[in-house]
């Protein structure tokens, strides 16, 4: 995250605050990211306690219980799946291990709501599985009981299957980073392979694993489409219902504020896992890990386990979607699909351009000024990733609507022209939300790219007469073109997948692929949801495949940096 301090150059003293364009810009962006949080927290201070009491008595307990239960379940699920898969793949030899090493990442390309739709379509009464069962055993409806997945258990299962790669990636990187020596020493001191794992490798990897879990928790908290579809009431669905169902903006804001409390706890856990839990490796000797061979039975079990993860997390839902999309290929002749895709792509392009530019300017301001103020502002700007989409939507729409009303009133009285919802009713608000939420993703790639450019490039450009902006444009930007592209691509894909904020903030009658999939699913027209879902997956697959390739080519010490640069969500948490 943080650009390493260069040791060769004397570091400039963190200077006293100086007012200049770069500092003002960085602070402004930091404040912009904080504004939506302030907008949902501020009303609490003035709120009628009666409202709170009402909320506590009615829905708050249920939302809180459900949210925590879901988070706990997904935490346990991703921890078990992710750590086990990472250990097997880095340490053991079994059929297919080279393939699984990267294929285990594929579920990252799946938006959770898409997987939820796919499995529901697959398993429900009219779905292919039950049809096949009925045909095979000659059963009729009502002859048998079939478990439903549209409940808390199903939600936990689906989220775990899609989100475990976060833990897998972090744990795998940690296992690879560990010097093999410590494990070998442990073996020579009489511990078994299993004992070495539990006693040495796992404690060493704990900070990384906790970091991965924190990201999983943030994703779970942000989750909307899948839990809504499965009928599990969480904060996200509660905010959505309060906003749309009841038009109760105050309740929505209160729920959002309560949600931010959970986020704050998560951030503290994540920060602690980086700080005190940080482990300095005592040996820097890396050698290619020689995977130890498993016995026939264990090897088969390992292959089956990894195969099941890839199959259930990616192949089965992808095949289901493909099947549905082919059945409804007629939709391809319809203008609707292309219009939705166009909306998605335009929004994603605009957001990625804006996010990359802002991130570049922020990272460069930090490098240029090296003041605590700028550093702090950049850190805050990277916190947007932790704000759940639903909270962000409420936090942006509340102040913008007020502003719109004032502009409208002023325009009416001055010019006699109503301006309507100038900001909150257009895509401007939505773009703002996207940039705030995904700035961290761009910032992470851009900072990593900038850190690889030596400070003497900067000095050379400056002494050759280039002012900072020219140096940034003509020297740094071309040198880090790869990082800028990666940043843009990752933001692009995140925007394509985003659901809750889009749903709440999109302009009237302005649909994207994600919104369309959600609407079909809500109308119980799952087969129709397949085509837009599949289109999203196709886009999301690109960075995942690039990351996979980086991983399959990586060696201890060499590849982890590349992998880290490719997977900003994994490091995006502040």
């Amino acid at each position: 995250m943080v650009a390493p301090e260069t040791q060769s150059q004397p570091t400039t003293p963190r200077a006293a605050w100086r007012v200049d364009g770069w500092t003002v810009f960085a602070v402004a962006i930091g404040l912009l990211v904080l504004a939506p949080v302030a907008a949902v927290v501020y009303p609490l201070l003035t709120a009628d306690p009666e409202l709170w009491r009402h909320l506590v008595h009615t829905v708050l307990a249920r939302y809180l219980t459900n949210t925590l239960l879901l988070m706990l379940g997904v935490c346990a699920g991703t921890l078990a799946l992710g750590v086990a898969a990472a250990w097997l793949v880095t340490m053991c030899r079994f059929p297919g291990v080279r393939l699984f090493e990267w294929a285990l990442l594929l579920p990252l390309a799946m938006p959770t709501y898409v997987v939820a739709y796919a499995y529901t379509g697959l398993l429900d009464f009219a779905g292919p599985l039950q049809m096949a069962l009925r045909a095979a055993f000659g059963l009729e409806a009502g002859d048998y009981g079939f478990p439903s997945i549209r409940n808390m258990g199903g939600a936990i299962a689906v989220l775990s299957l899609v989100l475990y790669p976060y833990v897998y990636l972090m744990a795998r990187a940690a296992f690879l980073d560990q010097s093999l020596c410590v494990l070998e020493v442990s073996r020579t001191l009489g511990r078994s392979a299993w004992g070495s794992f539990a006693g040495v490798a796992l404690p060493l990897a704990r900070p990384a694993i906790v970091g991965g879990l924190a990201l999983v928790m943030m994703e779970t908290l942000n989750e909307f489409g899948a839990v809504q579809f499965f009928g599990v009431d969480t904060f996200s669905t509660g905010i959505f219902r309060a906003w749309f169902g009841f038009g109760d903006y105050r309740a929505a804001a209160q729920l959002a504020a309560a949600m931010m409390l959970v986020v704050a706890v998560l951030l503290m856990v994540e920060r602690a896992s980086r700080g005190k839990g940080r482990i300095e490796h005592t040996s820097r000797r890396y050698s290619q890990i020689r995977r130890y061979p498993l016995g026939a039975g264990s090897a088969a079990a390992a292959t089956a386990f990894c195969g099941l993860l890839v199959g259930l997390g990616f192949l089965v839902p992808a095949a289901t979607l493909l099947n549905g999309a082919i059945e409804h290929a007629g939709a391809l002749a319809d203008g609707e699909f292309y219009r939705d895709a166009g909306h998605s792509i335009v929004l994603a392009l605009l957001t990625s351009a804006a996010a990359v530019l802002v991130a570049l300017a922020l990272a460069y301001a930090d490098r240029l000024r090296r003041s605590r103020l700028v550093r702090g502002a950049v850190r805050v700007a990277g916190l947007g990733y932790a704000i759940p989409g639903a909270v962000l939507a409420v936090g942006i729409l509340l102040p913008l609507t007020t502003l719109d009303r004032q502009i409208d009133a002023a325009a009416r009285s001055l010019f006699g022209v109503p301006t309507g919802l100038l900001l909150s009713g257009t895509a401007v608000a939505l773009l703002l939300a996207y940039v705030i939420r995904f700035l961290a993703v761009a910032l992470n790639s851009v900072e990593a790219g900038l850190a690889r450019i030596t400070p003497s490039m900067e000095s050379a450009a400056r002494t050759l007469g280039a002012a900072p902006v020219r140096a940034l444009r003509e020297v740094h930007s071309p040198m880090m073109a790869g990082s800028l592209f990666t940043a843009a691509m990752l933001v692009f894909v995140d925007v394509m997948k985003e659901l809750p904020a889009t749903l709440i903030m999109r302009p009237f009658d302005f649909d994207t692929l994600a919104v369309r999939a959600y609407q079909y699913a809500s109308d119980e027209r799952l087969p129709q949801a397949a085509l837009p879902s599949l289109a999203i997956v196709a886009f999301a697959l690109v960075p995942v495949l690039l990351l996979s390739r980086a991983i399959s080519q990586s060696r201890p010490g060499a590849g982890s940096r590349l992998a880290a640069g490719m997977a900003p969500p994994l490091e995006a948490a502040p």
Partner: protein
Amino acid sequence: MSVGLRLEGVSHAYDVAPVLRDLSLQAAPGELVCLVGPSGCGKTTALRLVAGLERLQQGSIDIDGRRVADSQTHVPPERRSVGLVFQDFALFPHLRVVENVGFGLGSVSLGERVARSRAMLAQVGMEEFAEAYPHMLSGGQQQRVALARALAPQPKIMLLDEPFSGLDTRLRQRVRDDALHVLKQSGTTTLLVTHDPEEAMFMADRIAMMDRGRLVQLGTPSEIYGQPANRFVAEFFSDLNVLQGVVRGGRVATPFGPVAAGGLPEGAAAEVLIRPEALRVQGPADGNSAAPGIAARVVAARLLGRTSLVHLCLNLDPAHRHDGALGGGSAQQPEHDHWHVRVPGRFLPAEDSIVRVALDPAQSFVFPAGDPK
């Protein structure tokens, strides 16, 4: 007299650690001044302050008669008209050689920029590589392009930060030679930072010797070598034979005869520093007792290339054990009776043979004992 560069009372600290203390320095137009000293002595900071890459905390800096930095002024680096060459050359990897050289010629037309870049490349003998990318060049070629790039905008002052230390030894000598001529030919005032005493003597019109943030001595290479201000300066440029003594009658006694004590008071504890080449040796072949100096026994002799290093012991008994290390540290302890003598060319007397040694008093220095090292 006009001044190419003037630093006046410059002090600087990182957080609270002082790195420069009251540094004042002038360079005449076209003069090449070497800032030399061990790492951490503040020389690179001084360079960065002149370039404007650090903000000046105290004092003032003028370039070519123009105030660029004091407590009120900070001219940003891009408006100081300085050329900077780095240890890592810092060529822009995404630009061709000719584009690198033309980068600082922002204000002229494209055609003229290319023409001037090519002319500059010709001056450093790199015109045939104009279309190449930096990664296709060797270290020595990159260094020449870096020099051309810094010189192209015709800066008022050139700043070189350890510009040759990234090159291997053999290449370094050639590149250094070329750079010296290019710089002198351009007539640009130059400040070069190095920790290599030989490099400083090779390049400099004048050497500014620095120690822990202070300027210790400023003078021509021959002044610095021949009349060092203290033991630190003397020791920086060669290893030394060191001898403790006391001033008696304005002189300090040594086994090779007394040396003048300079201005030291009578009875003061003194240190006599003798450069290895200040001891003259006459070999065993013509070893008649009429030759000047005193007898010494050869402990070891090694050919180092252009010179030979002979280790001597004044105790002539071969059974006597000396405890100095061969070719060892810079300061030989006289109590150990182990002396280093540097002789031009090939001079390799046999072990335990007896030679005669005499001292050239002009190359021995007397300082008060306990002078800063």
